[in-house]
């Protein structure tokens, strides 16, 4: 009992959004932004807490960058208010906001050395002595591991180094809030992963609040304390990476985050502890071990993640529910996992991923054109109604 309480306390400390009394650090209230007839951001309300890494995730043109640019002050909202630490930001120009931004293109000054680029922001602050600026620049160069490159110009640096200069330049001012626009977009996969963890370390040691804009769900998953998924100018779901992945609330979110097999069907049974969906796309029934609380007969979608589906050569004991027979059409060996595309009897292609736990010979592995049975556990499907 006591340990459970302690767990709750810890949870609230790490996840301030669960505490109803917590004061939001950044508040977007009914923000709308129109460019002519085009509504880029539509009535977005959002609370972000101190110390969070909040990721705005969405495809291109979903309004996530516009939201960020309004926070930085480059765009003015057509309606609504943005509060930072209780202060209304309306009418405050970008150069007076205690907010710094790391640009997608990095926007390093090409005519200045790395040092000068980083010092630029400090030189704009009043009451900072030259020696103080120099020490802070040296310190931040140390943190981002760029000390040997201090006197180089941006064009003499690699993409990863430029990205770190951009990060250092935005961090050196010790902003209350750091905005990052696709921060790792230009980096290759290895470097991106390393930098992601580096970013988290820096964020934890400096205690800055981050708002990150990205279209890359993997990036959002690793970085974020919470993710806000955006579509067509609206926030469709806010939650921790786990919540977003395991409990998507709409078809869009389920589809956007990771890959998913979507089965359309009608709700035939809906009780508090179980539900059944009759799906023509599956050619059978989907059994779920919790209630949906929706109207009987309603059209719903059951989303099953590829890694939650089992693939086997023998038919299972119960073939009437959560089960489909099909033929393997494609196999992609990715090293750590293999992806199978199975055409089931109803005609739909289902995606299944299996981890390659054992090193199997080609004979033991499931092969092309083999007939297989797909099954999943009753807790696996997520049912969405829109």
């Amino acid at each position, binding site marked *: 009992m006591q340990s459970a309480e302690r767990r709750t306390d810890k949870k609230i400390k790490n996840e301030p959004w669960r505490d109803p009394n917590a004061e939001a650090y950044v508040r977007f209230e009914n923000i709308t932004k129109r460019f002519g007839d085009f509504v880029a951001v539509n009535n977005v309300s959002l609370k972000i807490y101190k110390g969070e890494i909040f990721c705005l995730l969405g495809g291109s043109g979903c309004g996530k960058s516009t939201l960020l640019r309004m926070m*930085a*002050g*480059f765009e003015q909202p057509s309606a609504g208010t943005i509060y930072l630490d209780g202060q209304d930001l309306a009418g405050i*120009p*970008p*150069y*007076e906001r205690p*907010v*710094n*931004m790391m*640009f997608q*293109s990095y*926007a*390093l*000054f*090409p*005519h200045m050395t790395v040092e000068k680029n980083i010092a*630029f*922001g400090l030189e*704009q*602050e009043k009451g900072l002595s030259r020696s103080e600026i120099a020490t802070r620049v040296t310190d931040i160069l140390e943190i981002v591991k760029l000390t040997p490159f201090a006197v180089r110009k941006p*064009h003499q640096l690699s993409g990863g180094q430029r990205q770190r200069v951009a990060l250092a*330049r*935005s961090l050196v*001012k010790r902003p209350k809030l750091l905005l990052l626009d696709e921060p790792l977009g230009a980096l290759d996969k290895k470097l991106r992963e390393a930098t992601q963890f580096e970013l988290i370390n820096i964020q934890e040691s400096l205690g800055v609040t981050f708002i990150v804009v990205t279209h890359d769900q993997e990036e959002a998953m690793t970085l974020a304390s919470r993710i806000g998924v955006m579509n067509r100018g609206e926030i469709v779901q806010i939650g921790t990476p786990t919540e977003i992945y395991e409990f998507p609330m709409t078809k869009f979110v389920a589809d956007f985050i990771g890959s998913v097999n979507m089965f359309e069907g009608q709700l035939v049974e809906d009780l508090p502890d179980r539900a059944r969906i009759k799906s023509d796309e599956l050619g059978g029934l989907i059994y779920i071990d919790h209630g949906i609380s929706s109207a009987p007969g309603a059209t719903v979608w059951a989303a099953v993640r590829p890694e939650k589906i089992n693939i086997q050569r023998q038919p299972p004991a119960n073939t009437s529910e959560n089960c489909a027979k099909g033929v393997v059409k494609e196999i992609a060996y990715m090293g750590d996992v293999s992806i199978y595309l199975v055409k089931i009897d109803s005609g739909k292609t289902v995606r299944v991923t299996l981890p390659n736990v054992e090193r199997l010979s080609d004979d033991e592995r499931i092969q092309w054109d083999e007939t297989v049975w797909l099954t999943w556990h009753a807790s696996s499907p997520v049912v969405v109604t829109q």
Partner: protein
Amino acid sequence: MSLSAARTVGTRGTPGRLGPVWTFLFRYGPPRWTEYLIKNWAGQRLVISLPYLWLLIFFLVPFLIVLKISFAEFSPLGRPPYEPVFRWLDEGALQIKLLVSSYTYLFNEPLYVSSWGYSIMVAAVSTVLCLLLGYPMAYAIARSTPTYRNVFLMLVILPFWTSFLLRVYAWIGLLKTDGVINNVLMWLGIIDAPLTMMYTSFAVYIGIVYSYLPFMILPLYSNLEKHDNTLLEAASDLGAGPIKAFLRVTLPLSFPGIVAGSLLVFIPAVGEYVIPSLLGRTDQLMIAKLLSDEFFLNRDWPKASAVAIAMLLLLVVPIMLFQHFQNKELQANKK
């Protein structure tokens, strides 16, 4: 690549509707010698060498002739009016007679010295005026929407559609004592007596700034137009207000454009002949006018040549600077 492709087309079947020449080319490809030229980049060499040959014949050779004349001795009754520099003596020896008197004259004669000083001053002041006027214009054009941008650029270039001489003459009509400007000012009651504007340095500045402003605006525009707006956003984000951001980001980045524009104004302005002759002071000549007088009135070819050479040397420094900065900008653009 494309050659072999053409061959393949030929072997697959004759393109029926094309004429016999094309059919032939498709079947057998281009003749061997063109293939050879393309392979060895001789085409590129040819393209480069033709204009260089032109410059060699019509620029370098005349320059050497002028250089030679500048060292010759003036002979007022001669035809041409100078003593030959190179002469074969009867004994078969080559006599070379070089005089530096034309050059020493340039530095000792007060008329020349003051003309040099005046030319450089007029050119420098005009350049600064063009820069002060042209920079905001170029900036505004670069920042306007694409539709307006083309209109504005067109308006900058539009004066070139009329003859340069005609436009300078038109200024006489505007500036003279009973000209348009004086009449309007008197009619408005701003002045009682007409202002003396013609035949002053003021008129020369007006003429030069008016004529050369596009040469300042265009290179500045082409530089400013390439500026990345996010750099200004970054500056603003880091706490720099609009003026600071301009001084620390836009201005330094437009430096190559400033240099290019300034040289394009300064270099021709130093040697400007028409504008000061038509609008300028009669008591203070610019160097080009002096040169032409020396040549056509005094018929002193050696001195005229020496002036020309000295002017060239004076301008070589800014021209080389111009080249240097242009190369620098080209390299920056490649990145």
